[in-house]
């Protein structure tokens, strides 16, 4: 039996790109679709028993685009955000201009997963702290090269 909360379909807004780079496209696309299906399927099973959940990919600015979209949506519980932890704990301090206050405009509902990202260096590089590495990188000529799972800058 549908409840009032299910009278309008849910929109599940994903802040993750289908792929971060062409090289990783296949793997990323598979992972993102899996997350979307998992979350959407769970919502259908737990909340709305058969109601459709629209998965809406809004990628950009490390999740800021999706966060702003959800923050500006009507506060009726029908538009949800799937975002990375960096959206809440890094973006507020990294970006000079922000269109959303994650502490005021969004409310966490559930943790969907957990992972760890690390900065890894060659063990022979004589730096043991992030600040020393940044200082070395700024002075490096030619510029240091790096590999990342994220987009290229």
């Amino acid at each position, binding site marked *: 039996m549908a409840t009032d909360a299910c009278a309008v379909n849910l929109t599940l807004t994903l802040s993750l790109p289908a792929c971060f780079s062409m090289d990783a496209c296949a793997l990323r696309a598979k992972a993102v679709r899996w997350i979307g299906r998992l979350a959407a399927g769970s919502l259908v099973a737990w909340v709305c028993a058969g109601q459709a959940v629209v998965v809406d990919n809004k990628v950009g600015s490390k999740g800021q685009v999706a966060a702003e979209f959800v923050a500006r949506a009507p506060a009726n519980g029908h538009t949800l955000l799937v975002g990375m932890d960096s959206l*809440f*704990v890094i973006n507020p*301090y*990294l*970006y000079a*201009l922000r269109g959303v206050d994650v502490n005021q405009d969004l409310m966490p509902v559930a943790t969907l997963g957990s992972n760890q990202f690390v900065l890894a260096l060659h063990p022979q590089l004589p730096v043991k702290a*992030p600040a020393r590495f940044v200082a070395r990188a700024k002075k490096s000529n030619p510029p240091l090269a790096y590999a990342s799972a994220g987009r290229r800058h």
Partner: protein
Amino acid sequence: MLQTSLDQMQQMIKQEQASYSKVIRDLQVKVD
């Protein structure tokens, strides 16, 4: 461990914000 309650998640976010704000401030990094 996955945080399951609103209080747990908000506490985790505040702890992480405190940690990352210090790291980013120390690195003196800002993106326009």
